């Protein structure tokens, strides 16, 4: 048991912190949000330059060779700086999915392009009728003249309009809700029949509704095996959730720091408001939520790379459930303790609160995660017999 980072991991954490301190201030971030594309090509280039886009890409393809822990180090720092770049979909979800399930050709062509910053990805796993159910896929892909033809709608695709390549789930057999019959495809957003409607999300990001109408793509666009895509979608979502947990922890850290600072400096009734016990205890509760969230983000970062899918799901869902709760508590209390100032758009506080709310919604909120966790629990062998020992002697006589 060891909670220490390796030397390489420490270097990674240091370099991301240094890069963001220098290049991603809150003011810069607000400018990026207001810009036309809603992301920063300059920052993206910089992230590639310091090697962060390849953090989770195997060495052989120009990356750092990291996994869940490395990703979480980057994401926690992103949380502190409220980064709005399409890092999660590109460098975590797409990169790791391709490394896990891609053909040699796909890996050779796509992974170095992610690492060097020349390609951005977006992942469309959800649909208007699916809510958080990854298995509810109505989008269809049928084979026609040796090509795949896709039809359907993907909802709230983060950064969907600014990506160079989309990854979408589509049904190749069965009906919506069937675990089998889902396949994964690369779709070029410039392909004929792909239409998108972009919109801003309340946390400063951009998303899109994607409509695919008779989109015809090559057989090489398939990722993994036909009809067997759901486990890959779930694995990718789990990796994204573990990363989001780390990002949330970074947001909570920033919020707690800002709130503590405010309690120490804001004067009312002739004293700093942090002198009031009711506020002290509230701040302590915020700290405890943050500590518990840190523990769970760490558990998720380690277990997301577990071979055992049930163990992985159990840890990730548990982490996201708890972090949804703690993020809501910390966010609401940070605004409350900042008083009227917490309500203003000019202070960073509210922006962290919004990001935490958005993270809760991404890939399923606390209620959804509780369901997932309970399902994973009942799939686990439980040793219940330890309580069914034979009665002791005097009891048998009685």
């Amino acid at each position: 048991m060891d909670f220490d980072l390796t030397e390489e991991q420490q270097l990674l954490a240091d370099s991301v912190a240094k890069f963001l301190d220098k290049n991603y201030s809150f003011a810069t971030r607000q400018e990026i949000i207001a810009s036309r594309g809603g992301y920063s090509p300059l920052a993206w280039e910089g992230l590639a330059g310091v090697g962060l886009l390849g953090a989770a890409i195997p060495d052989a393809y120009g990356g750092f060779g990291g996994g869940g822990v490395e990703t979480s180090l980057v994401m926690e720092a992103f949380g502190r700086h409220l980064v709005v770049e399409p890092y999660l979909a590109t460098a975590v979800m797409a990169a790791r999915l391709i490394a896990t399930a891609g053909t040699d050709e796909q890996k050779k062509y796509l992974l170095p392009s992610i690492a060097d910053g020349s390609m951005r990805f977006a992942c469309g796993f959800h649909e208007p009728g699916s809510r958080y159910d990854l298995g509810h896929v109505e989008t269809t892909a049928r084979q026609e003249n040796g090509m795949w033809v896709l039809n359907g709608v993907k909802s709230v695709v983060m950064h969907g309009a600014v990506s160079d390549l989309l990854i979408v789930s589509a049904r190749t057999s069965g009906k919506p809700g069937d675990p089998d019959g889902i396949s994964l495809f690369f779709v070029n957003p410039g392909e004929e029949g792909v239409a998108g409607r972009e919109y801003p999300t309340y946390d400063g990001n951009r998303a899109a509704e994607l409509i695919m109408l008779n989109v015809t793509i090559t057989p090489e666009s398939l990722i993994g095996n036909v009809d067997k895509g759901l486990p890959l979608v779930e694995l990718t979502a789990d990796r994204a959730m573990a990363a989001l947990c780390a990002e949330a922890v970074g947001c909570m850290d920033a919020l707690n720091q800002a709130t503590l600072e405010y309690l120490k400096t804001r004067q009312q009734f002739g004293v700093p408001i942090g002198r009031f016990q009711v506020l002290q205890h509230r701040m302590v509760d915020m700290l405890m939520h943050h500590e518990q969230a840190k523990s769970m983000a760490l558990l998720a970062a380690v277990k997301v790379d577990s071979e055992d899918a049930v163990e992985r799901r159990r840890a990730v869902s548990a982490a996201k459930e708890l972090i949804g709760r703690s993020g809501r508590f910390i966010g609401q209390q940070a605004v409350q303790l900042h008083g009227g100032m917490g309500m203003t758009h000019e202070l960073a506080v509210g922006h962290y609160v919004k990001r935490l709310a958005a993270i809760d919604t991404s890939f399923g909120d606390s209620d959804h995660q509780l369901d997932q966790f309970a399902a994973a629990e009942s799939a686990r062998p439980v040793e219940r017999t330890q309580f069914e020992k034979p009665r002791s002697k005097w009891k048998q006589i009685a």
Partner: protein
Amino acid sequence: MDLNYTPDEIAFRDEARAFVRAHLPPEIARKVIEHKRLGKADYVTWQQILHRKGWVAPHWPVEFGGTGWNPVQRHLFEEECAAAGAPPLIAFGLYMVGPVIIAFGDAAQKQRFLPRILASEDWWCQGYSEPGSGSDLASLKTRAERRGDHYVVNGQKTWTTLAQYADMMFCLVRTSSEGKKQEGISFLLIDMKSPGVTVRPIITLDGEHEVNEVWFEDVEVPVENLVGQEGRGWTYAKFLLSHERTNIAGVSRSKRELAYLKHVASKEHAGGRPLIENPRFRDKIARVEIDLMALEITDLRVLAADRQGKAPGPEASILKIKGTEIQQALTELMMEAVGPYALPDLPDAWGDHWLGEYVGPEYAAPLAARYFNYRKVSIYGGSNEIQRNIISQQILGL
């Protein structure tokens, strides 16, 4: 970053497990697991079994009878004990006064008291709280006046746990009313058989006799029973509190209780199905389980810092608050699980040698009493509000 134990640690755990399984008397384990009433003999029997193995005081220095285990080994041992249903070690001698005598006692005190603590020949109790001194402990009034080679003690202690069994009390007494209130306190070891000591039971919500009032009327205590220096008792008391933290989170016990809760919820039925499958109840269990997973990691993080020689700090307060919240939630859910059969109040039914008929399932009998009893855990050992004050001052600097 590695959440797994090393092969050496696993080998140690296996050794501890084998010993505990082979030597813990099953009738004692059964009482612990099923929340039956434990008597003095149950505690002493287990402590003497551990003493014969040399494992009763792992945290003591080796020269005084400790094992030389590191914090991880101690943690693993405690886990094995808790999982098997071993009774908790009575803290007053082994965890409280023992370390104080080792650190501040003179040679004669060490020779006289330590071997008897290890052998469970003396049962110790704690004389801290008074009717007027609860959370404000330093305001205590019990007086000790020096007369020749004796102190004469007058006053009253309260909430004295299991004083009805005690041979000795370590007691905070006021030897001076000059200066700061903390400075006039001394640490005295009092023989409970001394003339003038009266122990009166206090019956708590659960109908049980666990705590007492202890009265002192001109009780003569030889001066050689003063630990350290007169007027330095507060310092020793604080030292003691920092050592009381061992297993303060109670994670392993809570894990056992959680498994028992699931056992009860699988036996109980609601609407013709096992209660554990009722979504509302299942969610409550799942949420406690997630909180417990987080606390386990938080506990291990503190432990890892401990192993690196970082002094036990205010993090212990986080463990105490979260640990007791979870313990209380578990007792609450267990009582809830048995529904109306929590109501019968038959205290003999959870005692030794009950040959009567149970009303409802046997496991239901002690659950209400246990729920009421466990309201104490957020009050004792520094109430959870006092713990929040500690975190606020020592971690947050408010």
